[in-house]
């Protein structure tokens, strides 16, 4: 019974997940007229498919070429995620293992401080960040956007990784230290190999959130480092080109699917059994 429910739910959810994506895929092959004349679902039968939407975003029709934007996004996402996962992972490890703080301000407050950075919506940080980057002469540069994104991604990494490190028995790093590793070496040699699932998930989150950041990219760049989402949103003119945007929606998740496919294999079950009974 519960087995039937389980698979029914799994199938339902999978269909629910795929439905809008299929709709986007179908829409991406429509002409404007086909979109505006009511909902149709089956190409060739209900409408004549065209590649115009795709030509429009790949620079073939001269309308827009999203490939340079995708490269920008890759550069920015890669470095912002790398910095976030590295520094965030170290900080999370520290917060999991040591006691920090000043008077009443302790570890849990520091962790909260990290995550609190995500409370403010980007819309209100846009102007201050704009001024900051202006004064640093980093407007419209990769570095500027990487730094700003890092401030948003690192908190997620810390938040996730603290819980994760808490699950790894402390005795393991103590043991490594007893065996002659300084804490950094203990982290690298003893803990890091155990943390692959945590790092994989942090990296997935960091990359996805970094990749999909729209608002900072929109405000803090002009012409040089337009990222993919900013470029896609910029396609939305007086008349919303649903067909082109649908194609872009599909196009912009392709690299992420590849990345997640590669990284996701590290999410194996039973992380630390055999470490501590």
């Amino acid at each position, binding site marked *: 019974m519960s087995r039937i429910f389980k698979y029914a739910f799994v199938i339902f959810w999978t269909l629910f997940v795929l439905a809008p994506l299929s709709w986007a895929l179908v829409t991406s092959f429509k002409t404007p007229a086909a979109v505006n004349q009511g909902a149709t679902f089956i190409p060739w039968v209900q409408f004549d498919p065209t590649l115009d939407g795709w030509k429009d975003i790949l620079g073939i029709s001269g309308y827009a070429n999203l490939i340079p934007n995708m490269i920008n996004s890759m550069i920015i996402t890669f470095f912002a995620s790398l910095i976030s996962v590295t520094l965030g992972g170290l900080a999370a490890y520290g917060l999991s293992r040591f006691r920090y703080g000043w008077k009443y301000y302790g570890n849990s407050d520091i962790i909260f401080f990290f995550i609190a950075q995500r409370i403010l919506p980007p819309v209100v940080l846009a102007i201050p960040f704009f001024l900051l980057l202006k004064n640093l002469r980093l407007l419209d540069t990769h570095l500027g956007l990487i730094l700003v994104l890092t401030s948003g991604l690192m908190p997620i990494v810390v938040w996730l990784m603290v819980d994760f490190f808490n699950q790894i028995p402390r005795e393991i790093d103590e*043991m490594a*230290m007893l*065996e*002659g590793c300084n804490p950094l070496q203990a982290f690298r040699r003893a803990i890091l190999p155990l943390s692959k699932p945590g790092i994989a998930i942090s990296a997935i989150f960091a990359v996805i959130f970094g990749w999909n950041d729209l608002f900072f990219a929109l405000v803090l760049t002009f012409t040089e480092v337009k990222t993919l989402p900013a470029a896609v949103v910029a396609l939305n003119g007086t008349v919303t080109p649903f067909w082109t945007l649908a194609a872009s929606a599909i196009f912009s998740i392709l690299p992420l699917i590849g990345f997640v496919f590669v990284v996701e294999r590290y999410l194996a079950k039973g992380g*630390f059994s*055999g470490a501590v009974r």
Partner: protein
Amino acid sequence: MSLELKDLGITDGTDMILEGITYTFEPGRVYVLMGRTLSGKTSLMRTIAGLLDFTDGDMYFNGEDFDVLPTWKRSTSMVYQQFINYPNRTVLGNVLFPLLRSGLSKAEAKAKALEMIDKVGLSSFADRKPGQLSGGQQQRVAIARALIRNSNILLLDEPLMNLDYKLREQLREDFRELFTTSKDSVTIYATTEPAEALLVGDELLVMHEGRIIQSGVPAEVFENPNSVTVAQIVNEPPMSVLTAEISNGTFSIGHRMKSQIPAHLVGLPDGDYQAGFRASELTIGSEGDMKEEGEVDVAEVAGSETLIYLNTPTGYTIVQEEGIHQYISGDKLGITIPPERAFLFDLSGNLVVAPGN
């Protein structure tokens, strides 16, 4: 190469975790720490290992301030009561790990590790991961890792605690031999088992509430516990402590059972005392002068013996009976108390007289 603790203490807020620990550990000897859970054994070991900061006193190793050295420079090895190993490494990898920073060549290190693995009896498991081993085997890996570095200080924190009875007996036997390989080390071994203490220890330190309350040769401490507390700690099962009185030439227990003053108690002034009896020296049955009727609370079989916990009018009493017997809660049993085996303590708990052997 001695480890010297001077008035060492740890205070956390108002909690005293360790207090006034003064002791000198010499190399080549095995020191057994006994004490109940939370008595400070683990804290003391972690302090020595540098994993815990102390707040008072001093610690010297070889005459030099030990406190300035971080854990990883102290040359300390530790075996935990849980079986801690690197789950992602093989047995060989685990045993090799401590050698990585030793400056040995890879081949040398490997040879040495294999030798140690052989010594703990795991040669056929060198390529397995800890998760694929039994508990006892895992603990052997941990012990091999601890021994391989020839550390100056070897700390074993109840290493046999989580093993079953048989494995415990077996490993216990191995220990004496294994420890002889580390002649230059200070070895500190924490346990709650008197048998272990007697078997592996050169010195016994009894800890209670963060203090060392008695130290000495294990047999000596065992025979002459200086207080009720020590007596309770070093006896497993604990002693039954009953009220006693000496007056007018009679020795009475619980104001009810009376007998002649046994030989070792002769000459003591009249007054109220406490009398402690080892469980193994109390017997089931109603013989002799001092007998008592009790009601079984719990009875459990340990190895080839049966432990019976009884409520008696005099107090809670624990009896160890040879052989395997079955009792159920509420059974009425007679017990016999041998007055000549009484450890006599004064009312504040200090030893007055031990029965001797």
